[in-house]
């Protein structure tokens, strides 16, 4: 009990300081970045969705390592859940789990819709909300529905992981082409003064690659969880 009181007291101090600083911030607020992106964002990147412009162009280096984190986590989760002892033949004598038929029909209906929505989000990432990461996650969710239909679905995790790694290599290569054309790493390989439609080619390509990579990565993660202990 005493530690809870201590905690609340400390929180009160932190809260007070934070509130003061937020009140201060209202007068000190700096809008440099915002104005810059509003004025130059579309002209320099060709993406009317400024969030995508930042993710895929201004701060592409971050996005590469964001994809890298997913890659590492996928390998890590697989490594932790993997064991040397093969237990393919093991069958549970009591397995109560069974999906109701109504849900199966419903899921079959929803699955293609979600997949289509995911692809839409990936491909239109530069002009509407969304992009590679979000679309990839939606595609992964759609695949998740497949498991809902049949929980004992067999998946070749090794293959997925290999494809994922190759996709990551492709993303890094794609991002580095600009060193040849532009003389700087990690930006659009077309000239900043080029036409917006031309630059969109790069954005869509990169979004598709990232989308597939994220989808495969998340797919692997939840397959590892579903298989865990089976």
């Amino acid at each position, binding site marked *: 009990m005493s*530690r*809870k009181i201590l*905690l609340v007291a400390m*929180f009160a101090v*932190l*809260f007070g300081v*934070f*509130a003061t600083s*937020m009140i201060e*911030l*209202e007068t000190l*607020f700096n*809008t440099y*970045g*915002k104005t810059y*992106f*509003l004025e130059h*964002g*579309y002209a320099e990147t060709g993406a*009317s*969705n*400024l*969030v995508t*412009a*930042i*993710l895929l162009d201004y*701060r592409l280096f*971050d*996005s590469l390592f*964001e994809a890298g*984190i*997913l890659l*590492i*986590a996928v390998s*890590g*989760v697989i490594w*932790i*859940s993997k064991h040397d002892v093969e237990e393919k033949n093991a069958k549970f004598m009591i397995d109560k789990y069974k999906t109701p038929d109504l849900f199966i029909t419903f899921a079959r209906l929803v699955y293609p819709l979600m997949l289509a929505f995911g692809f839409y989000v990936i491909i239109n990432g530069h*002009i*509407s*909300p969304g*992009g590679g*990461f*979000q679309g990839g996650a939606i595609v992964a969710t759609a695949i998740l529905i497949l498991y809902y239909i049949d929980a004992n679905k067999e998946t070749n995790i090794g293959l997925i992981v290999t494809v994922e790694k190759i996709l990551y290599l492709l993303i890094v290569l794609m991002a580095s082409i600009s060193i040849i054309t532009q003389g700087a790493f990690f930006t659009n390989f077309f000239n900043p003064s080029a036409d917006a439609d031309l630059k969109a080619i790069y954005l869509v390509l990169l979004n598709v690659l990232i989308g597939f990579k*994220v989808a495969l990565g998340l797919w692997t*993660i939840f397959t*590892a*969880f579903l298989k*865990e*202990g089976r």
Partner: protein
Amino acid sequence: MNPILTFIVILIGFYGLATSNNIIKSVFSVTIIESGVILLFLNLGNLEGGAIPILNDQVSYIVDPLPQALMITTIVIGSTVTALALMLCIKIFHHYGTVEWKEVLGRKDVKS
């Protein structure tokens, strides 16, 4: 006002970390803190108001797009951390038969 309310969420997350004895709950406390931080970024980006950061002919005043781009990265990072932590949780349960911090950290039975 909004950022201040959001900070309460972050503090609740820390409260959870400091009081919960269950590993899964600690993992979720971290998720709460992370969601709070994301919300704080967006609140502060939205402090002066504005349209969503997708340009068309009518838009002349937008919210800050940079925090939003950063937060997409943070969401991905947070979800991977959660996945890794929960996988460790399952393994810990099968090694120790419990996910209570006290019992997991207290057991001392390595031979070497």
